[in-house]
Each structure stands twice: as structure tokens, then as C-alpha cells.
């Protein structure tokens, strides 16, 4: 049985006089014990909101509606009362956030910020807690931990801060760790170190990890199973290799195609996905990605595409998926969309290309390939 089974989670922000925003619109995925799962997508696709909803950390505000189920080890987290949720948070499920500086309390020494978790969930106090905190800092690779415990967040470097946050998250040996873009705010060399650290921690402790990221390099280096999100829904789920080798959903194809590559020829341009996340079709009216899709066909609009289950557990939500590279035949070519046949043909070409090339791009975890940057936070 899966450790975490997320079923059809939806998050709606309703405002009086305005149209309700479906930030998350039926996301389902599962995480097995000890597994590393990726949630990938661009800004605003609902990946962070999903994780916050699971943790019960969405800011309480009128008009917020959370639906669906998030079953963790037999209990539905969304049905729990505040108190039992607090018992689980930090002890069984921990979370690491994007910006380590703003995620740490500026007026409290690092030491207390670590020991408060130990006090809360493991009943440690005083010297015992301080000792354990020092051991935790040491474990996440912070040199001279005793001195660091007395320091404040502004006295630490960005990488050290993220390490400290990780120490707080793993303090109670949680069974599930959710990392929400843990490396986005860090520079590239530090990114690699932090990912390495997370990988080690997860391997040594058997903690399951949900990695939320927009960075395909991160995904390729870490995740065993990957869920690609678009417009608040999972559009494709696959194991790492098949996903990179033969992406089926045109959005996944586009994501892979837009990663800059070192072996690209000089002057070769990136292939960004046209349009932006704002060009969104509500899922009720068809595929949300349709307005930006290069493989759009008439069937895309009208009703939401069904989830197609393919072999070895992969699934995608598309009526006209990218062809498997080995099977690419003329007959398989998509029916060109009415307006821009040229673009469509172009897109298909890219798709096939990206599909075959990807394993190479998958190698560097967050190596020298600069990852596409997120322009805006959701």
C-alpha cells in the first residue's frame, strides 16, 4: 500500500463578485514508502498549493475550499482536526520550503528553531535537545554546529540556511518529506550540494520524498516517479526513464524541449512553449493545455480528456499524445489544427527529437545546465 495516496485533491479560492479560481483541480498521485516522487510543472500549475493543502498549511481565508482525499498511512489528512494534524506535521510529514531566508524566523537563534521541533515531538529539553540539535546540524553538513546553534539566520549563508531547514525537517525522522522547490533560491553549485544532501538523507533513512520543482534537471537526478502538472491537474505520470525517453503528453514534450542544452549548436534557439500558463482553458471545457498545444485537435475542446493508462503504470491525460519515437509513423501524425499548420508540424518534429535526446539531458542533477528560472511564484 502506498504511504501517501492523494486522490482528486482540489483547491478553490472563491471571492465575492469574482470567478472562483481552481488552483488545484483534481490532482491524484501516490507515494510509496521510501520512494522519491517528483511534482513538476511551471509556475502557477498548482504544485505548491497541492503540497500545502496536504499539509493543511494553506492560509485560512474565507472562500478557500479544499476537496478530495490525502490518505497518509491509513488516515485522511484532510479530515483531521487541527490538533491531530499538528501532531503529524513535523513528526511524520515534514516540509522544506523554497526561500531559506524568509522561511527562518529572523529574531530567534537557529538552535531554538531546531530544538523546538525536538521538544514538541520527541519531548527533548535543555542539554539533551541542544546536543541532538548539534548532531542534526552536523548530519546535514553544517560545520561547527555548536557555534551555529547560537547564531541567527542572517549570519548564515544561503546554503547553510537551507541545510538548517533540512535539519529541522528531518529532526523527527519523518516518513515523508515534502520539498517545495528547495533549491530555487540557491546558486547552482549550492543547489547540487543540497540535492546531494537530500538524496543521501532519503537513502539512509528510508524517508519518502516528494520533490516539487520546475527544474527538470532536479527531477532527472532524483526522482523515481514523476508527475507532470498543468493547470491544476496531473497530465502525465511515469517512471523517470520512460518519461524522459518517450514523453507522451505534449506539455511534457514541450517542457523537455525547452531545457537549454550544452551540446546545442551555437546560435540555436531554445524552444519555449508558446503562450503562458494564463492562457488556460478550464478543465471542464476541455484540455487546459489546448490553447498552447502544438498537437491540438478538435477533440481537445469540448470535454476534459480522460486519463489514459498505458503500459508499466504510466498514464497521461491527452487525446492526441506524442507518438512513441520507435513507432512514429506518418499515419500517427496528428491532424493539423486549423489555424497554424506550420507551427503544428514544427512542434511534432521537436517532440520526436526531444524524446530521443533526453537521456543525455537527464544526467546532470543540476549540473552546469542552467535551469529555466521561475518568473513568478504562485
Amino acid at each position, binding site marked *: 500500500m502506498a504511504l501517501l495516496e492523494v486522490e482528486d485533491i482540489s483547491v478553490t479560492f472563491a471571492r465575492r463578485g469574482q470567478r472562483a479560481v481552481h488552483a488545484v483541480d483534481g490532482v491524484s498521485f501516490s507515494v510509496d514508502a521510501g520512494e522519491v516522487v517528483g511534482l513538476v510543472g511551471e509556475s502557477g500549475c498548482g504544485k505548491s498549493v497541492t503540497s500545502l493543502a496536504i*499539509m493543511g*498549511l494553506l*492560509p485560512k481565508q*474565507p472562500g478557500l475550499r479544499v476537496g478530495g482525499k490525502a490518505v497518509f498511512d491509513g488516515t485522511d489528512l484532510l479530515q483531521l482536526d*487541527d490538533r491531530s*494534524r*499538528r*501532531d*503529524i*506535521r*513535523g*513528526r511524520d510529514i*515534514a*516540509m522544506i*520550503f523554497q*526561500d531559506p531566508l*524568509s*522561511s*527562518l*524566523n*529572523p*529574531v*530567534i*537563534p537557529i538552535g*531554538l528553531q531546531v530544538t*523546538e*521541533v525536538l521538544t*514538541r*515531538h520527541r519531548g527533548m529539553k535543555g542539554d539533551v535537545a541542544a546536543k541532538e540539535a548539534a548532531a542534526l546540524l552536523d548530519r546535514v553538513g553544517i560545520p561547527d554546529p555548536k557555534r551555529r546553534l547560537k547564531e*541567527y539566520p*542572517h549570519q548564515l549563508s544561503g546554503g547553510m540556511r537551507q541545510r538548517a*531547514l533540512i535539519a*529541522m525537517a528531518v529532526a523527527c525522522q519523518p516518513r515523508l518529506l515534502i520539498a517545495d522547490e528547495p533549491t530555487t533560491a540557491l546558486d547552482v553549485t549550492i543547489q547540487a550540494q543540497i540535492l546531494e544532501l537530500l538524496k543521501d538523507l532519503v537513502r539512509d533513512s528510508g524517508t519518502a520524498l516528494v520533490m516539487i520543482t520546475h527544474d527538470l534537471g532536479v527531477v532527472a537526478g532524483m526522482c523515481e516517479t514523476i508527475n507532470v502538472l498543468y493547470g491544476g491537474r496531473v497530465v502525465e505520470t511515469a517512471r523517470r526513464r520512460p518519461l524522459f525517453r518517450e514523453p507522451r503528453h505534449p506539455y511534457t514534450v514541450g517542457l523537455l524541449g525547452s531545457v537549454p542544452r550544452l551540446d546545442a549548436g551555437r546560435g540555436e534557439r531554445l524552444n519555449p512553449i508558446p503562450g503562458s500558463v494564463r492562457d488556460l482553458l478550464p478543465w471542464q471545457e476541455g484540455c487546459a493545455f489546448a490553447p498552447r498545444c502544438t498537437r491540438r485537435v478538435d477533440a481537445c475542446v469540448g470535454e476534459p480528456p480522460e486519463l489514459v493508462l498505458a503500459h508499466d503504470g504510466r498514464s497521461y491525460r491527452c487525446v492526441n499524445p506524442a507518438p512513441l519515437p520507435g513507432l512514429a509513423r506518418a499515419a500517427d501524425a496528428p491532424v493539423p489544427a486549423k489555424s497554424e499548420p506550420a507551427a503544428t508540424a514544427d512542434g511534432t518534429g521537436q517532440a520526436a527529437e526531444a524524446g530521443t535526446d533526453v537521456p543525455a539531458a537527464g544526467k546532470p542533477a543540476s549540473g552546469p545546465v542552467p535551469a529555466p528560472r521561475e518568473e513568478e511564484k504562485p
Partner: protein
Amino acid sequence: MFRFIVRRLLQLIPTLFGLSILLFIWLRRLPGGPETAILGERGTPEMRAAIRHNLGLDEPVLVQYGRFVRRMIRLDLGTSISTKREVTTEFLQRFPGTVELTITAMVIAIGIGIPLGYLAARRRGRLLDHMSVGGSLIGICIPVFFLAYILKAIFSENLGWFPSSGRQDPTLGATRITNFFVLDGLMTREWDAAADALWHLILPGIALASIPLAIIVRITRASVLEVLNEDFVRTAEAKGLTENVVRRRHVLRNSLLPVVTSIGLLTGGLLSGAVLTETVFAFSGIGAFVAEAISQRDYPVLMGFIMIIAVVYVLVNLIVDLSYSLIDPRVRVR
């Protein structure tokens, strides 16, 4: 820390110097002079000139200023023209009253303002929030002297719960040591005197607290709302900390930073005297005395009091800055 304090105190010297020059010029340009106040309408020019000569006011302004500065350096503020007593004595007698009143007002304002502002933020958009925001608007709008009159009329004249004037019941014959009546009562174990002095402070304290209270409620509320959205509060929640710990350790402490600054400014303002409140309650603090000194053109009292108030103001702000650095490690002073 020590160097910071010394530096701030040294900065006081040019500040006081500049202030004394401005004061000197302004005061001398006020129409009339002490001789008019003393003699009224009937004085002959000769009598006026004689008084001016006695007070040294017929000398050139520069000479007068030089004499003032020489005395200042010896910490001698001169003698009041109207009461004929030393300005320092007058000050030491009256300032404790103002300090007691200020402390009372600030204790009320802080004690109610911070919790109320915090609760309003937590219950944002609900009844308590609307009531405290609306109430603070009223608090700012009502003129303090008006509130003072109403409080006096209701609670002392009609209901008789509180004394209507003065700092203490003179029939108690309380011993004076520091002129802080509450403190004196505690030091001499004259408990009834201390309690009576405290009782006299309540109504003027409430009247004076109205504006600081309103400001503190608003600043606390805004600050808490901002901090509640901070990432580190989310981190604290993600750790599963109890609501109590999240509130106290993570939300409240960070929200207090801007509140502390405004408390300092408000306290400094109150210490410079509350003329109207003191007048309504016949409370002998510096406010009413300074107002009287202005109409009497009592130059030594005005110069002396204003200079001392300036020093007090700077000291209060120094204390605020120091306490700020205690709360926020990022502004630790060197």
C-alpha cells in the same frame, strides 16, 4: 553597545546647542516680555525698563545668550521670573508628576493595545476586528481634553469613584522623597498614600492613553497581519508546533518590532507634558506649568524645561533603540 550609547549622548551636545539658539531667538521675538506680565497694563515705561534691567533683558541678545550658555555648562538653569524659585527645583518638583502620568497612560495603552491589536488581526474581518478598528478611529478623533472632561464628569463628579483633581489627597500628609508620589508611598511604607496617588492617576491616565492606545492597536494589528503571512510562520506551522508556541514565539515577537518604535515616540511625546489633561484634573505636572510660563514670558523656565525635555526625549529614544536591538538580532548595535 557602550560605544553606541556614548556616541548617541555626544550627538546630544550639538542638538542641544542648536535647540538653545532657536529657542532663544523665538522667545525673544514673542511680543511683550516678563515686565508686561508682571505689571499688567498699568506699568509706566520707567517701571518696565527697571524690571528689564534687573532681569538683564536690556543687554544685547548675544550677551544674554552667552550668559545662558555659561550657566548651562554649570548645569545652572537660573531662576523663574514668576515664582522666584530655581528652575531646576521647579522641574524636579513637577516632572515626577508628568512621568507618573505618562507611565500610567502607556501602561494602559500598551496593556490593552497590544493584545487588542493582536486579537483583531487574528479575527480579521470579524466583529472584534471591526470594533477595535472603529474604536481606535474614535480614540484618535476625540480631543483629549474633551474625553478628560467627560471622564471627570461621569466617574468622579457623578459616580464619585475617582478623585477629580490633584495628585494626592493633601490631608494624608504623605512624606515626600522623590516627588514620585506612588514611589514615595512605597518607599516610606505609607501604603494609603501610594494607593491614593495611584487612584488620582487613573482618570487622567485613561484620558491621556486614548491616542497612544488607538495608535498601538492599529500598528499591532497591521504588523501581526503582515507577520502572519511570513514564510517563517508557515515553517513553524509545518513543524507541528502548538498554536500557542507559534503565536508567542514566532508571530508576536516579530510583530512587536514596529510597535516598539512607536511606543518610544509616543512616550517621548507624553513626557513633554499634557497641558490640557493636566489642566482639567488640576494635576501638577510640567504641561500646565510650561503653558503658564509661556503666557508669563518666563524665559528661564521655558528655556530650562524645553532643554530638559529635549534631553529626556533623546534618552527615551535611545532606550527604544537599545530595546529594539534586544528584540531583533539583525540590528544589534556596536
